[in-house]
């Protein structure tokens, strides 16, 4: 059957090539081909967000129109390194990591012609933290106590508590102080649609479903060679795949199985980027079924992670036993894994007193081994993962009732019901990957968000290791602590972590070099993928 799909696609491509010949010069410039070749058209599954750092744009370092104080470097297989961007060198912390001094680059101008200095940095962070802005990312910067522009080229961050991974918080884009002068909701800021940044690109226009970026000729790091970038918003996966196949786009993001249908096409390459983006089932500690450590261990043994990676993800992903992916290098403990063993799962359940009932579902003291797992209805991947999990659980006598629940109803039910969750929002340090997911301080009411420690997991050993590691400046010590955490996670699992996703992209081979893999965070789209470092792309030959 897939051959049929391929012939359809092949047909589409041929005809598209013909149409392209009959309608040349859509770029409308005299140097037709030349102009087209310095331009990329990408299709994104996500609507163009608000181009305002205060509303969260570019928080993890992907903005094209803004520069942060630091930026990511790619190429390595592990956690991306940071390099100075608007800073002239990497920030230095004081001995207890509570005060960070950042020297700034001179002679940088914003796209409106004004000069960048320390006041802009202070203003941007102040706006994020100002309650009047109602910034949705304020919580991620809770450790920042104050930001001071010591002189035009130096800024000092003072933290409320020691925080070693702080440099990753400096990826946030910097907007001019003038644009942030009036306090008020970030939602109403003109920056949302008319950004003013120092980045390698400027927003040229937003029309209908298209967003056009042009290279910033005055960028401090040199103007990018890809002169124009058009991002088209095409929410539907299938439409995007079809239009990609017809040659309309230079690249797009696709679910793995759909991307595979394009893999054999001439001139198209399917690219997978590793991510720390996990999917798993949180098991609330308060529930009589999921709160039983035996049930948690049994479920972890019951799921066939390799089969899920193979059939649900089409091979684009990795089985995950804990929240720490292999790309974290020495931080990862290779022994902290679960193996697929349904018989072991049954044995664990038998031992704990869960005996099979008349309908095959186990019972203990009148309590059926049954619980609910919620997932977001619009996310087909989570739907499939939830279905696969429920099917595997049923095979060992645990009944999982699936429920598609929207975010608002989801929130209050997280401590009560199981939920298919994802994470790995800021994977540049084990701390941001693990702390909020596991630390017991987040079980208290009103601390953090509901997504923090969703299972209400309490493990004093884990708590102690997490706290030590975030304050420690000694790498070996941190490695030991994070390995300890992972050993705890397989002995006393808070969840059934299933997979790390590989984010899959399709790109047209049009003669550019400079693509580098990078570890991607939870959010994705064409801001990431092969195009995350578009600024460094060079024309081949």
């Amino acid at each position, binding site marked *: 059957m897939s051959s049929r799909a391929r012939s359809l696609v092949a047909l589409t491509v041929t005809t598209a090539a013909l149409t392209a010949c009959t309608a040349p010069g859509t770029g409308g410039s005299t140097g037709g081909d030349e102009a087209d070749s310095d331009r990329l058209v990408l299709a994104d599954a996500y609507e163009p967000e608000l181009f305002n750092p205060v509303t969260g744009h570019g928080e993890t370092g992907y903005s094209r129109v803004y520069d942060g104080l630091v930026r990511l470097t790619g190429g390595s297989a592990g956690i991306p390194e940071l390099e100075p961007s608007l800073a002239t060198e990497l920030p230095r912390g004081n001995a207890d990591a509570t005060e960070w001094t950042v020297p700034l680059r001179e002679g940088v101008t914003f796209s409106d012609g004004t000069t960048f200095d320390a006041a802009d940095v202070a203003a941007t962070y102040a706006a994020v933290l100002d309650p009047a802005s109602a910034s949705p990312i304020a919580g991620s910067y809770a450790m920042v106590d104050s930001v001071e522009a010591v002189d035009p080229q130096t800024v000092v961050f003072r933290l409320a508590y020691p925080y070693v991974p702080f440099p990753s918080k400096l990826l946030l884009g910097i907007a001019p102080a003038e644009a942030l002068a009036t306090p008020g909701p970030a939602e109403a800021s003109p920056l949302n649609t008319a950004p003013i940044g120092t980045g390698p690109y400027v927003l040229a226009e937003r029309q209908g479903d298209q967003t056009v970026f042009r290279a910033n000729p005055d960028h401090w790091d040199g103007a990018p060679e890809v002169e124009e970038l058009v991002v088209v918003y095409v929410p*539907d996966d299938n439409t995007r795949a079809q239009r990609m196949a017809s040659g309309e786009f230079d690249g797009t993001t696709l679910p793995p199985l759909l991307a595979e249908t394009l893999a054999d096409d001439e001139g198209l390459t399917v690219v997978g980027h590793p991510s720390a983006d996990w999917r798993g089932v949180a098991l609330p500690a308060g529930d009589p079924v999921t709160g039983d450590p035996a049930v948690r261990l049994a479920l972890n043994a019951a799921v066939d992670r390799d089969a899920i990676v193979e059939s649900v993800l089409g091979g684009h992903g990795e089985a995950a036993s804990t929240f720490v992916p292999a790309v974290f290098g020495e931080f990862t403990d290779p022994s902290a894994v679960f193996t697929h063993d349904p018989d072991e799962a049954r044995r664990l359940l038998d031992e704990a007193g869960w005996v099979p009932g008349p309908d095959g579902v186990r019972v203990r003291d009148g309590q059926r081994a049954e619980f609910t797992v919620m997932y977001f209805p619009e996310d087909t991947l989570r739907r499939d993962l939830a279905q696969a999990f429920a099917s595997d659980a*049923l095979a060992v006598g645990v009944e999982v009732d699936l429920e598609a629940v929207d975010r608002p109803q989801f929130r209050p039910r997280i401590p009560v019901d199981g939920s298919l969750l994802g994470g790995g929002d800021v994977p540049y340090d084990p701390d941001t990957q693990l702390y909020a997911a596991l630390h017991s301080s987040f079980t208290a009411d009103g601390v953090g968000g509901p997504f923090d420690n969703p299972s209400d997991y309490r493990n004093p050993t884990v708590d102690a290791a997490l706290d030590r590691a975030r304050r420690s400046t000694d790498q070996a010590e941190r490695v030991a602590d994070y390995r300890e955490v992972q050993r705890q996670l397989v002995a006393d699992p808070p969840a059934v972590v299933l997979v790390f996703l590989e984010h899959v992209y399709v790109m047209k081979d049009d003669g550019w070099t400079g693509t580098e893999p990078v570890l991607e965070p939870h959010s994705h789209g064409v801001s990431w993928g092969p195009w995350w470092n578009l600024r460094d792309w060079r024309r081949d030959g």
Partner: protein
Amino acid sequence: MADRRLRAGVVLLVLLAGYALLVPWLAGVDDRVTDFAAARQGPSWAHLFGTDSAGRDLFVRTAAGLRVSLFIAVVCALLSVLIGALVGALSAAAGGWVDRLTMRVVDGVNAVPHLLLGIVLVALFRGSLVAIIASIALTHWTQVARIVRAEVLSLRDREHVDAALLGGATRWRVVRRHLLPAALPQALVAAVLLLPHAVWHESTLSFLGLGLPPHAASLGTLLQEARSSLLLGGWWTLVFPALGLVLATLAVAAIGAALRDRAALPERAGAQL
């Protein structure tokens, strides 16, 4: 002509209903068991309609979806008739400004496109069956109200009603004893005419991702899934559920049209639903 249409419609509907009710029961397959390794297989003897993206048999799943969709449609149609008949009868019986006001309300509800109202209601109370049913029933009663009101108005002028009124019966009693029973057949025909629209409405909402949860089987969720399977070559995921939807619509529409002709309702009663 009308009889032949009626017979054809009934036969088709009985076949579809039999398929929808019996197949999932006979197959005895647990809906929760997935086999992703067997996903998206084309039609074969083992799987007449092929398999879906989770490796489930589509012959069984289409039947299950048809069952859910027909059930929702019937409940919605009955609810609409209940609301519509009550409002129409009361409005006609009361007459005067109550009648005029009621008819304005009917106009008002009609002025908002049904799907828009449905989308708003379902989006705001997402994921609940009650919201889906309410959103369909609350937007479709107006036609029934009109038909019943017109029927009651025309009956009111007849002699036995005059006689009853002269005999000292209260208005409401006249409505209940004479007018409503007489208007009931018309209302039921209207219910049948509503059915295809209710089936559509449910499938449309589910298709837009606002109706039933995606792991549940309904014609709308199956078609939504088909959208993503099409490019993977899974034509059968579109064809069979769509066929079920179209055949069900045709069957019910044929029955409705035949009944409408018998009841001598205006043509528009069906067209504007």
